[in-house]
């Protein structure tokens, strides 16, 4: 009896074991097949397919040479101190159709990259770090394979402003919520240059609902993870949102960096954010803002006044009318007027308070509002780690078709995310150019190398080259010269040692 049950046991155990083993690879296969099967359905849309457009984009429009030159930092030159392996140690990650991630791609030359792009037609390219070794051979180096440098990057996502903005949410972005981004660029760009001393800073529009910043100074690229985290700490003020209110990490007296930020925020606040976002036009918006005022009485009296009076001041005091009034410049917008009222009321109330401390706290609430509403909100995790992937500039955003183009931080206010060229538009422009020129197939091929010339992408690439690439090239060359000199000096001392 016993032996029989034991045998049965063993048999059952064996079959279960097999089943468990067999099940896993099958599940994996299924998943892959599903992924493969999914995209064609999505791609069945009107007009030329995304795949066709992207093929054209990589062939004729994507500035592959400029991008590659950037990521080499002079190591592609014939300079004596140039590191020939540099570019092949940089990770690029492709997202292929159907959200298939192909990580650890690397290239020796821009032509290799161009060929592979034409072949794989990734819907998205991410830039990773430079590793100790070629990432394609990472298995060989196992533990010794680790990231050694990477640009300091910052990501600002419009969705972090959802509880503030009055024009939309989620993937939405428009010229009315752009001021949040523009002021963020201004504040961060100033801090990165003045406080951290960085010079090679590239701002790009992500193509959908945010902006990215790439700091390419050698010092920035070499920052260790804990220092990256400290940069984030220095740059961030908003420590989270609780009950609809931002928690601010700043005291009664401000650090000089925040005082400077405040000056920028204040002017943006009255000139752009209040009038364009109409933050004080409607009850749900001004009530949210009034939360920051610690004085209950003041809050309710203002809310009551605005509830009654709002409509009277600007007929049909809705956003559009108010924005139109502001745009016309002939009258101050409703929100700005209300803000002035609020400021005056707070100051009056503060002067009536017996204790200086309470008065200061009340007045600080005005600063708090401005910081909570307009201080840059960073997606901090992106910045903290050297090996975080971030979408490459001049990629096409797969959802919007918009190209990820550079933004001039000086002119951030004039940037309109709706004016950004899309892949559809660009491909059409090329086709029209070719038709106009009546070019033969041979000529088309020749033009293919820099087909973006004459399209609406050209000014962006030109700006990228002139204000980012060429100063960077000068710095890279200087760094290489320095390295060569240091190496020579080292050799001299070694020789001296030997002779001695």
């Amino acid at each position, binding site marked *: 009896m016993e032996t029989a049950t034991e045998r049965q046991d063993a048999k059952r155990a064996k079959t279960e074991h097999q089943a468990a083993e067999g099940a896993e690879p099958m599940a994996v296969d299924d998943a892959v097949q599903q992924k493969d099967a999914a995209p064609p359905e999505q791609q069945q849309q009107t007009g030329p397919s995304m795949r066709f457009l992207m093929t054209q984009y990589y062939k004729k429009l994507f500035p592959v040479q400029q991008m590659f030159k950037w990521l080499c930092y002079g190591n592609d030159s014939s300079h004596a101190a140039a590191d020939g392996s540099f570019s092949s140690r940089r990770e690029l990650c492709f997202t292929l159709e159907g959200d298939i991630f192909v990580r650890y791609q690397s290239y020796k030359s821009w032509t290799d990259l161009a060929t592979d792009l034409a072949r794989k037609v990734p819907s998205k390219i991410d830039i990773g770090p430079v590793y100790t070794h070629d990432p394609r051979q990472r298995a060989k180096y196992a533990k010794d394979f680790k990231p050694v440098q990477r640009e300091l990057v910052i990501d600002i996502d419009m969705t972090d402003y959802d509880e503030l903005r009055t024009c939309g949410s989620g993937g939405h972005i428009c010229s009315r919520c752009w001021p949040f981004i523009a002021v963020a660029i201004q504040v961060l760009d100033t801090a990165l240059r003045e406080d951290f001393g960085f010079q090679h800073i590239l701002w790009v529009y992500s193509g959908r609902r945010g902006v990215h910043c790439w700091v390419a100074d050698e*010092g920035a690229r070499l920052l260790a993870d804990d220092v990256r985290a400290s940069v984030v700490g220095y740059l961030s003020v908003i420590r989270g949102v609780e009950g609809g209110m931002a928690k601010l990490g700043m005291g009664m007296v401000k650090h000089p960096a925040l005082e400077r930020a405040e000056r920028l925020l204040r002017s943006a606040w009255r000139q752009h954010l209040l009038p364009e976002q109409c933050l004080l036009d409607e009850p749900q918006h001004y009530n949210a803002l009034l939360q920051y005022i610690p004085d209950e009485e003041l809050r309710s009296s203002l809310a009551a006044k605005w509830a009654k009076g709002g409509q009277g001041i600007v007929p049909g005091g809705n956003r559009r009318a108010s924005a139109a009034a502001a745009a016309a410049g002939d009258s101050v917008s409703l929100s700005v007027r209300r803000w002035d009222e609020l400021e005056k009321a707070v100051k009056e109330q503060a002067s009536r308070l017996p204790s200086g401390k309470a008065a200061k706290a009340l007045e600080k609430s005005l600063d708090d509002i401005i910081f909570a509403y307009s201080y840059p909100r960073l997606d901090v995790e992106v910045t903290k780690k050297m090996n975080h992937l971030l979408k490459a500039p001049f990629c096409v955003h797969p959802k919007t078709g918009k190209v990820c183009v550079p933004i001039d931080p000086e002119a951030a206010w004039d940037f309109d995310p709706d004016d950004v060229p899309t892949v559809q538009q660009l491909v059409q422009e090329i086709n029209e150019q070719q038709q106009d020129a009546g070019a033969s197939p041979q000529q088309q091929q020749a033009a293919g190398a820099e087909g973006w010339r004459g399209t609406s992408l050209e000014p962006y690439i030109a700006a990228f080259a002139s204000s980012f690439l060429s100063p960077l090239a000068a710095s890279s060359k200087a760094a290489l010269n320095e390295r060569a000199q240091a190496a020579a000096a080292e050799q001299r001392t070694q020789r001296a040692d030997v002779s001695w």
Partner: protein
Amino acid sequence: MNFINSAPRPVVGGTPTTQASKGPYLELSMYKEVPTGEISLEEFEEYALDRLRVLKAIEEAKLRSKSEDTIQADVETLLKKHMQGSSRQQTYRKDVLSHHILRLAYCRTADLRSWLLAQEALLFKFRFKALGRQQQVEFFSSMGLPYHAISDAEFEELAGQLAAVLNACGEWDKAKAVTSSSRRGDTHGLQDIGRAGAAAAAAAAAVASRPLFYKVPFQAVPDLVGSRRVLLRAGQAYVGEDQVYSLVVGAFRSCLSASLAEAARAWGAFSAAEADRLAPLVDSLPSRSVYGSDNRKVPVGEISAGQLAGLVAGRHFPLCMSVMYERLASEHHLKHWGLQQFSLFLKSIGLPLEQALLFFRQQFAPRTPGDKFNKEYAYNVRYNYGQEGKRQDWSEWSCVKIINQEVGGACAGAGECNGGCPYKTYSAEQLRAALSRLNCNDKVIREVVDKARGKHYQLACGLAFEGITGSPQETGINKPSEYYASSIELATQRAAAAAGANGAGAQQGQQQQQQGQQAGGGAVQPQQQEGPPQTPAGQRAVAAGIPA
């Protein structure tokens, strides 16, 4: 612009030590030189465990978010208690040796290295801060770091902003000192203090009693930058004299980090040569419980986080819980249901909320940093203790609930533990392996597997109790805590019997023995009180960790 490139992290030249007058334990070392000389194996082990006690206590204090001042005081007491030798020289020797032993023990994996680096840097910071101002400045200048104090001219130019930073940090007095000396400083003119003159500058400024500021690349003081406690200009941070600890600790960190990496490379050759002698000892250090020898007695019904390891090693947890404990220790994570099941069990055996939070935070630690833990998991633990949500005092999951828990075979697989009853989820193979790890009697294992096959999971668990402890479990197991209670009761009885064995009170012991023999399992084995094979000190610690 090359200031950023030139000195990312300073490399330290000398090996400064200070002769502190406050007490011998304050003598501070950068541990640059590897000690030579002889040390007995006992001392080797004792030194290492004593230092671990200090480091773990600091970690615990930090995880409990105690204030800096409290920890500062704690560290002083801890050092006095564990690290003080009979003479200043002895103390110094113990400090240096124990540091180097732990370097060896914690160099092998990245996790261990980063743990030791973090704790040693903390310890170093608190010890440095305990030095007097003069000693701090001396130590700092003796390190030969390439930083120099700013000139009077630069001080004049920046005084306003330097004061603003101090005000923003709430350092009103220091801010005042800066503003007042800047006004007076007009007469000083444009005296520039030379590059090499850092030490001279210190002396000069001490005379002029103007607050000193050092100009350093911001990379050297990430903690000060991250909390906006310094003025930053063009990549340079202006570090006040009472902030130099950050520079010193930074230098210490990078130095230790490099040494640990070096030790990791050298470890292979070392461990082969020492395979029979030091290697096993060094290997076991990181997983040793350091709480035991404190002999912390917790009244029945309340246990502390520090005791859990001992309880698991003493095989007092039912299989479902010991599996979870091990999984947590190796993966530093439990899935939601696993965490629920385990945390409610710990609650039921008397782990208070505060200790539970401490324990889970520690266990989740390298993978889930403290603040992430607080955000994502602490709520669940507090919820279980009736501190969140509907504030119900939840009781432990019964075996039935655990058995019926849909775990997707997670505990059985390689993933992270989602709880469940291993007698149900494990294959016969896994069950056999798991039980023999708990030193369960072989014959009993067969019976257990049989019962489990027959879907009598609770009976299987009761049988396993017998196989593991040598005594039958007669009351039945309906909740994991019942297993635990029976096991503790048995151990207590045995301990009492052993204590009375040489006296007349052997009656109970005899009963015990009879019980053991009746059980039909193996006879009561002498080592059954103790955990799985461990070093002698570990066994002692475990035995003492059982609540009497």
